[in-house]
């Protein structure tokens, strides 16, 4: 997993509450055999005026000019702002994959749905929850200044705004450590490889019929 330490990036404000995973990546894309390549289908129903599918080239489709990600000033954004309950709905990991593949490194929102929040950490996407007042201010600034960028400092657990303001955020120590070091859960579990092998040795004694 790509380590996350300090990321400075352009901000895209998605001023909506209850953005569900169906909206983030609709169901027809779940037939894909890849973990990558979902970026062009991120927010598919909002982003395009015509229907899409896995075998429809996104370049041939009509983008919705009103959708925030289609506005030139937000091109190349790596930090997404949203409102409460971001990522609610189904458990599909494809939602996280789509955000990452599009280029987002962090989502800053008022609150997150549980499963989306967990899935994010497994994929190196940092979800940051900040208070309602702070979110109001960040939305206002991002909409007012073209090229608005934020710095997310994970080791310091701070979001830094261009006006010099700093906002602290919470994250549990275990998850922070995984992200900063770029460790995935698999990498961490493999630190217990000896314990796994010892378990297997015991298992061969106690249950030799198992595969």
């Amino acid at each position, binding site marked *: 997993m790509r380590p996350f330490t300090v990321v400075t990036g352009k901000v895209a404000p998605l001023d909506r509450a209850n953005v569900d995973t169906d909206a983030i990546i609709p169901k027809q894309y*779940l*037939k*894909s*055999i*890849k*973990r*990558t390549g979902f970026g062009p289908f991120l927010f598919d129903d909002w982003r395009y005026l015509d229907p899409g599918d*896995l*075998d429809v080239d996104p370049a041939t489709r009509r983008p919705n000019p009103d959708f925030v990600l289609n506005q030139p000033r937000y091109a190349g954004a790596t930090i997404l702002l949203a409102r409460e309950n971001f990522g609610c709905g189904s*458990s599909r*990991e494809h939602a996280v*994959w789509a955000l990452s593949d599009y280029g987002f490194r962090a989502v800053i929102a008022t609150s997150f749905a549980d499963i989306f929040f967990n*899935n994010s950490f*497994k*994929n190196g996407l940092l979800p940051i929850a900040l208070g309602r007042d702070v979110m109001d201010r960040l939305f206002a600034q991002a909409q007012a200044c073209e090229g608005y960028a934020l710095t997310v400092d994970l080791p310091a657990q701070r979001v830094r705004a261009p006006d010099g303001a700093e906002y602290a955020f919470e994250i549990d120590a275990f998850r922070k450590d995984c992200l900063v070091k770029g460790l*995935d*859960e*698999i990498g961490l*579990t*493999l630190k*217990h*490889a000896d*314990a*796994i092998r010892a*378990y*297997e040795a015991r*298992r061969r004694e*106690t*249950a*030799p*019929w*198992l*595969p």
Partner: protein
Amino acid sequence: MAGKTLYDKLWDAHVVTDLGGGSALIYVDRHLLHEVTSPQAFEGLRLAGRKPWRLAANLAVADHNVPTTDRSRGIADPISRAQIEALDANCAEFGITEFRMDDARQGIVHVIGPEQGATLPGMTVVCGDSHTSTHGAFGALAFGIGTSEVEHVLATQTLVQKKAKNMRVTVQGEVAPGITAKDIALAVIGRIGTAGGTGCAIEFAGEAIERLSMEGRMTVCNMAIEAGARAGLIAVDQTTLDYLRGRPFAPHGALWEKAVAAWRELRSDADASFDREVVIEARAIKPQVTWGTSPEMVVPVDARVPDPAAETDAVKRAGLQRALAYMGLAANTPIVDIAIDKVFIGSCTNSRIEDLRAAAAVVRGRRLAPNIKQALVVPGSGLIKRQAEAEGLHRIFLEAGFEWREPGCSMCLGMNADRLAPGERCASTSNRNFEGRQGAGGRTHLVSPAMAAAAAVAGHFVDVRDFQ
């Protein structure tokens, strides 16, 4: 010290190391794979340069996307085909055993595991699919996982898990004649609700459960997930052992004897305590029919569609109204007055030989009602199909006007070509009646195989007990 539940025993036996905070690293004995949730996991493995930790633990099969008609010309839908070819290529590359589409043993992942003896008592069994709970019928700890976890299991043979709560559902006494495992499962969900088992491993116990065949027990544990449970469990007994003896992946000879001695311990201790207990009288269970868009929206066949006006809670009332509107039903309609368009006998819930026998017994010598547009029988595996043909069941179905298909998930979720058209109403032996589950706009009524067969002949729901 209080005794242990079956779940406690299975959990304790699989802790590799305690991670603190209620989490533990749990060892996985058996990992089943299918084509929809595994490609990204294999890709992850490849990108990280990792290999499967223990090849022999894995068994793969394509089931969700496979066509159930003639397969000799391959798969018409290129996207479905690519997903299946990816499974073939991944299994070949990593050396994982796979039953390919043209293998006689191919079938629905939750059917073939037990059929092959790949599911054994005392195991932990996982699969990237929520209905993995099915395998709990063998006294195994079995649950569904996400794609990142599929990769985690491939790479480490373990999972990071938090222990669930213990719940026991006792189905006391004997069921009446004509009542099947499906009716028991639906009656339990009707009683405790689709969130009734949240956070729990449910052990099913009681005389009615003990009297079930392994096929029936699998049906009950399969539906545990529809009650929100993490897993379903049934204690090991002679029925379990008789089913497994001689299966290809099961132990043989001296190892079998050794295993059996250990497996006999796989039951909850008499003094074990459960966080939650529910007792249901078997005698009171009638044939069940779902009327709505959640498995808990279920009533006995002699009842009527509920009336939202009788619901005092405004939120629930709105839910009932929404379900009735989607299902195209009027409040207070007798269930037996509901006419159907299609019939689906299949899925990991009800596609085993016993299910096909039960349906064939009702159909024998009769024909589909004229209003039935299509009736499918989709055996759960190639071996079940072959056995049914040896027993002549396929002729009974074909003579009645049913279609006799190749094994797979089929119209349970309509990821292949088998699906409902908008507005079509189906008597289905599957497990989920969510909006659009069997096809956009399709209307699903969950029933037992015998009830589905009777509805196919009558053209509307009937009480199979009057029918026989």
